[in-house]
């Protein structure tokens, strides 16, 4: 499978640099992690050809982003906010997208629509109007339209925004399911979204890439640096806030997860997670 190569991409809005020399090698299921305002959506929009590429290059095999008409057929895009015409039925909406994406052969269109509906588990709801669907279902309609035309690259911006816990889990599974034989780029500020779905991760902040690699490579950054300690409330107050990753209540005590280069007394070293790596990088970048 080809790699989506991003080289030295820059983007300015007025005088503000939004993306600063971004270079990435995107392949497989790829997560873009960063806080709000990091430039993720801008980068996504440039990849999705919604914003012009002003500086730098993007290529996918022999296809360059300089000619966006060649790029568009490669892309399925689900933006952060997605809704559809509320009085239209699920099938009608997807049918419309299918035609716009150039699936003009009727038989092929019907079979692809059926497959996509099955894939996103909306076959039963195909004759429901959009206005009667839950937030999760609408999001699934969104991913269904992105999959139409079998695009090589699927871009999903903030996939679980506004979904409840059950829907989030279901949606992450769906992303996993559709990832075969295509590149999926997921941008999110929610680490769990990427933890369970992505093979590769990049972390962004303030328009620059802090880190890029496979999930294992990323975890290695904080390998041996993550500690857990069982403390009471008075001890909790003594721990410097800059060290704390998370605090969990356990009865009248607290289990504190911390980052530290050195060993911590009465704490045990634990396996790092993506969240640990993310927080580690963000703290490093912010200080």
């Amino acid at each position, binding site marked *: 499978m080809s790699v989506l190569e991003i080289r030295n991409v820059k983007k300015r809005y007025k005088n503000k640099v939004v993306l600063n020399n971004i270079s990435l090698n995107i392949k497989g299921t790829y997560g873009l992690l960063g806080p709000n305002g990091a430039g993720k959506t801008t980068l996504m929009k440039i990849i*999705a050809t919604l914003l012009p590429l002003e500086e730098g290059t993007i290529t996918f095999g022999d296809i360059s982003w300089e000619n*966006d008409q060649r790029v568009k057929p490669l892309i399925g*895009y689900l*933006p952060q906010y*997605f809704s559809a*015409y509320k*009085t239209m039925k699920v099938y009608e909406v997807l*049918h419309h997208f299918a035609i*716009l994406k150039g699936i*003009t052969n009727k038989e092929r269109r019907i079979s692809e629509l059926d497959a996509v509906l099955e894939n996103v588990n909306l076959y039963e709801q195909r004759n429901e109007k959009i206005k009667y669907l839950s937030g999760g279902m609408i999001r699934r309609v969104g991913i269904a339209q992105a999959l139409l035309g079998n695009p090589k690259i699927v871009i999903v911006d903030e996939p679980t925004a506004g979904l409840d816990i059950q829907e989030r889990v279901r949606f992450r599974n769906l992303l996993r399911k559709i990832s075969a034989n295509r590149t999926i780029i997921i941008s999110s500020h929610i680490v769990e979204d990427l933890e369970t779905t992505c093979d590769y991760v990049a972390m962004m902040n303030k328009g620059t890439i802090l880190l890029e690699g496979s999930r294992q490579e990323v975890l290695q950054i904080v390998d041996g640096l993550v500690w857990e300690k069982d403390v009471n409330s008075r001890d909790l107050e003594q721990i410097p806030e800059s060290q704390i990753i998370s605090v969990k209540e356990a009865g009248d005590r607290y289990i504190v997860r911390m980052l530290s280069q050195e060993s911590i007394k009465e704490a045990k070293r634990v396996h790092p997670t993506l969240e640990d790596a993310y927080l580690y990088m963000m703290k490093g970048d912010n200080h």
Partner: protein
Amino acid sequence: MKVFNSMNVMWILFRRNPLFWILLVCFLTYVYYGFHFYSTGYNFSPGEALVRMSFAVQGGMLAFLFFGVLLIRLEENNHLHDIFSSIPKGNFSKFIGKLLFFFILVLLICLFVFSIYVFLFLPKGISFLPFYYDAFLYIVLYWGISFFLSMLIGALLASWFKGKIIYPLILFVWALIGPANSYFFGTAASKPVFSDFLAWINLGEPNPYALFNDLYGFELSLYHWMKRLFMLLCISFLFLFTHFLRKRGNIEKRFYMYVAVCIGSIGALIYYFTLDRQIYISNSLLAGTRERVDETYYRALSHENSVPHQVIAITKYDVHMKIKRLVEIDTAITIVNNQKQPLDNISLSLYHGFKVIDVSSSHKKLSFQQKNDLLNIQLPSELPPKQSCQLSISYKGLSSPLFFANSRAVYLPYYFPWLPSSNVEPAFQYTKIGLIRNNHQWGNDAEITLTYDGPTPLYTNIKKVGSKKWHGRSSFGLSVVVGKIAEMNRKNDGTQFVQPMTWEKNMYQYPEFKERTSHIMETISRNFHIPYEGFPKLVVFVPILSINDFAVEEYIWFASDHLIYGTSLQYQATILPQDEANYTYMLVPALTWKYKGIPIKDMEYLHLFDSVYAYVYNQQHGIPDDGSFLPRMNPIKSEKDQIKSSIVQWIKKEGNVEMKNRFCQEWFQLIESGSQDWNELKKLVEQYIVIKEDL
């Protein structure tokens, strides 16, 4: 397929919205009631039904401006815009699909409106297909295209402005581009520059406050189509420009081709608009209304235009007339010197809107001077008495707004100097009672050949002898009438009765009209010794008045070979006036002093004669006449008023009709002798009222 599917999506969205159906039903009911009002009873007027329905257009334009906003914001509201942008030609297909949807919606609305129109008027006796064809074009031009352009403007504004500022903007634009714009801008609309702008920017009926002119028909001049094409191109250009700014350089080559085509066409149309042309503007709120143009001109015109007295006759006219954007006439005339002295220059009347380009005789160019309505030509050599010479005169320009001549309609009657006339006086004169038309009938027999290239069918007082060619003789002049008129009585009595297609319903009155006219002709002929050549072969009954509608002298123009019977602009014109007595008042001046070609020196004097004799005639023939058409006499300020008052009082007294008739006969002899003098009239009055009355 992408475009059609996008269009279909719009249809699904609209048809599933109950508001769409509510609005559609309300609109059609509203249109039905509007048309129904003008298709029944006293208000019957097929033309007015469309013109007066400008209010529906104004309302519809607002709806379509909002539809334009919807066109842009529909995807934005549903967060779909980005997705369509990521699909190859996604947004373009959506945009064109939505435009197509609105285009078809507009077309369907036009068809619905037209169907209602036909449904209501066809059974009411309006059967001329060309009229319905025009009605359809009118609906397309002033309803359909206006709606569509409004939608595009709304879309353009919505693509520029986000948020709620769009509402006041839309309302402002609506007030600016609708047919009622001159109302919205109140007194400012009468300021000339702004007035012209408002007339130009108006996308609806150009004359929403004026009564429909059944002769001219709907104002469907090419200019109005071009104006809309221009707006369409400007809007397209602005869309392309907006696209260019948003894409920032990532533009296909085709784009530049579209821009070039747009700019080229816009440039060509700007040039087109700078050219002179005659369009029908009748809007009292605007400065350039047709009723005021000549009034302003002739009011300011000096009356000191002393013309040397000359007695010449034009005995032959060979006229080549072309009416397109301008009226272009090449005419060869034969002039005879009927005075005792030789002539080295001649003066002719020609309406000042026609600019003389060239005057020649035997291929030799002659010097000439054109000032106002007077054309002075230096002859190549002195023209001895009783000798003739031939002159070629070429001119082109615009006719008077009151005697229009353009690609839609032509009203160039014999009494208007559209052909060089030896009857030297201005086309109009401004009097106490306003602007009146001077009579330019020729006064001698002339042979006429007319080659005509312009709108058809043409009705004239000479015979058609070939394709685009007419030939004949007349001692009054040549009248050319084209418009939404038709010959109504082909199987009748040899007289061509021509009137607007929209007045077809009144034909049952024709026999009575003819009988009554013939009777008055016979009586006047006997009474005043005026020989007529029988009932005219051509009667043209048309709305020719828009100024001085109260002056009965303006209504009927009687030439030996044809009669022009005019009315004011009105609903449901009847051939016979509802007040029977009134018809006599209109006919008397036409059959007496106007027929004899007596020039107007004192309109008040002549008007008194007209009304007094008409009253006497009505008394003689038992036609009920309460004297309300006679001049009103209070307060009496001058001796003239005193004379008028004594005549009116005497004439209104019962009895002595024969004596009153004799008085009129003697009075007419005075007029025929060239007198329009109040002192002489006073003497005559004194003889009758004081002396003969006592006998």
